[in-house]
């Protein structure tokens, strides 16, 4: 991990940005972050996935968010949420092809600030789980800055990074597609998901996360520290 990332994840930096935050992000920072010395069993996680109009957080926008909460290493399906977000610009053809969300679908959807007001309380005190977290962190960070005047800091577990560590540990060469969510799930004997949207991918990542933890420590006594990004 680079120095810049260390600073961004530090509590000092958190104190600094907390003061600049407004609205829902302010309230989010009022809740202390998850304690990295606690066990994963005692930690609450939020598995999250986004769909966006492109890959550049500065230029592109979030069109949907899906998440699910994990408590005591169990995925709680009652906490599932899936929300569409109305972007400020019309959806481009290429992005529609990818996520199949059309302008008509999002015409009545909330804007990103409203969506974040819904999401941020769910993230407070929890650890983010994402498959390839830089995307989620980049887009959410940009959105928080635009809407609430400060970036987002959240302890994060990246299932892709955990998978990468698993593969490196075996010493085997990496096969193409080895880090894809579907393939990783199959390797852990998890059932396939036919649908693909933000929520199904969040749920898929949550299942993979449980499998990755079980592999490291079936009892879940593992310290959170050991798996954070």
């Amino acid at each position, binding site marked *: 991990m680079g120095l810049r990332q260390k600073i961004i994840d530090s509590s000092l930096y958190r104190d600094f940005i907390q003061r600049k935050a407004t609205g829902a992000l302010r309230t989010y920072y009022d809740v202390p972050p998850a304690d990295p010395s606690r066990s994963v069993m005692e930690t609450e996680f939020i598995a999250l996935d986004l769909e966006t109009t492109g890959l550049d957080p500065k230029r592109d926008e979030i069109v949907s968010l899906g998440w699910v909460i994990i408590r005591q290493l169990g995925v709680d399906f*009652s906490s*599932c949420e899936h929300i569409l977000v109305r972007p400020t610009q019309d959806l481009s053809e290429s992005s529609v092809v990818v996520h199949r969300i059309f302008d008509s679908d999002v015409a009545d959807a909330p804007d990103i600030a409203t969506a974040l007001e819904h999401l941020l309380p769910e993230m407070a005190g929890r650890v983010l789980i994402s498959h390839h977290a830089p995307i989620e962190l980049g887009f959410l960070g940009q959105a928080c800055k635009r809407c609430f005047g400060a970036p987002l800091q959240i302890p994060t577990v990246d299932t892709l990074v955990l998978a990468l560590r698993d593969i490196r540990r075996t010493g085997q060469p990496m096969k193409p597609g080895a880090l894809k969510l579907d393939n990783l799930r199959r390797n852990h*004997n998890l059932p396939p998901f036919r649908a693909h949207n933000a929520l*199904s991918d969040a749920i898929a990542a949550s299942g993979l996360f*449980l*499998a990755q933890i079980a592999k490291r420590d*079936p009892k879940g006594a593992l310290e959170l520290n050991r798996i954070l990004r």
Partner: protein
Amino acid sequence: MSIELEEIAEFLKQHHPFALLPDEVINTLPRRLTAKYFRAGTKVLSPEEQCLHLYIIRSGGTETRDPDGQLLARLSEGECFGVRAMYRNGKAANSITTLEDSLCYLLPEKDFHDLAAKYPQFKYFFAQIGGDRLRSGMQLIESRDDDQLKLMSIRVADLIARDLVSIDKSATILEAGQLMSKERVSCLLVTEDSDKIAGIMTDRDLRNRVVAQARSYDEPVTAIMTAKPISVHPDDYAFDALLTMTRHNVRHLPVMKDGKAVGMITTNNLLARQSLSAVYMAGRIGKLTDPVDMAKVIDQVPELLSHLIEAGATSQNAGHIVTTLSDAATVRLLQLAEEKLGPPPVPYVWMAGGSQGRQEQTALSDQDNCLILDDAYDPEKHATYFKGLADYVCDGLHKVGYVYCPGDMMAKTDQWRQPARTWQQYFNKWIEQPEPKSLMLCSVWFDLRPIHGTKGLFENLHRMIVSKAKDNRIFQAYMVGNALTHHVPLGFFKNFVMIRGGEHDSTLDLKHNGVVPIVDLARIHALANGVDAVNTFERLNAVKSFPSISTQGASDLLDAFEFVSITRLKHQVRQIRRGDAPDNFLHPESLSAFERSHLKDAFSVIKNLQNALEHAFGKSGT
């Protein structure tokens, strides 16, 4: 509901007992669930450990052992554990260990009990044996019968269905699989020193421990078998064997005597008790001497059918079981007739046609039967005997509850009580010089099945029918013409076309517009391809590989047949439960939107395949 939760609901819908719940209820369940993941070899529950959830296996597999370490069950995808804990104040009874990496869905105890309280079929599935589950089955038998035909009175030895198939423990997985396939068994006994039991291997093991784990077929069968399986003694009561099976959730039980295996009893845990009821009913019929008494047993068929359907039987299961009882009554009446009239002067075979022939009877069935006599039959000398025999049996069946066939397609009718040579002439004429009208009437005779007597008499005839029908395009075209007279009740815009006016206003006739067209389609494809099966499922499965119908078409038709048949049976069960006489006339509003759309799909499958049939056969002869 969002797509991914829908997938969880779909998963539940595919597995008992959730499949028995209404869709609206299943759709609320995913949000009640929590997912947990366990590595292979993890002890998920230990005896007396707190267990506040019912565990549903989503992927992977587990093993249940009692506190002494005795293997009780192996569970796989779609099966549940923690059931005992639900009835023991949240304390696990047995230990559960994962055999593979497993993902489980956890349903809270409270939701489990809410479902059990609201939906008897759900409760029934999990009910402790000895409790509700047996009681309702016993009532079925005992309610009308003071002789108490009890489950307690039959021994395991009477239930051993077939010879044991076993393999030495030195065999490889490949050899075991080949033997299972050759012998058509779902389970093998693995032996050592020629007759000592080393273990048991099931098709489930092949799936879970060989294919799923990409294990080499060259490994020894001992690597995948379950060592030291639980077993029963031939003198044990059937009751105890069932108890063992249901409690341990195993489908196969070796029967052991003096340390040697003497047989195997297999069952599909839930249907076991129901079909067993049928076994007892059939056994009971075999002991009665008066059709009036037999009627008392057959009167319970609607009740039996309700239990079967509620327990999740397929229409094929139900048809088979219900037909078994008609067969039993027929055989018993023939025995009684022979006792009364003396032994037959020439050999004969009693044949069932129509739904009894196809083993597809439901709660209401009339009789279709005929007699094939040996060619040594001499009308001068023997007519009186066989007339007497046929009258005795047909009249008896009528009294028992299988009413006379409205078209007189019965052995009682002189025309249908003939020596084999005359039957040959009949079939010759029907096949080589077909007339639409007569063909329509005699379609029941193309679904013949021997019930009692010298079956060889039929075999020769059957061979002739199959080979002649296969080669005769004109006959086939006429059969197609007949088959297409049964229209599917779908309008241009795929809306239902219902019966208008009269007693059955605004209903669908599920028999003539649903079941019969599929039966007809299956019969034609079977006859045209030289397939000798008569059961519709068997016919459709057999014709899959022939060019007259696409594999997809045959599969779709099988699904449609099951759906229409089960919808019809459920409709009849509802009527029986209300105390009404069962019929085939369904008000579509009584179905859920989901069922309605399925029914439309089933009808359009039939329609498509009728059209395809017309193209494949229809043009040449008409």
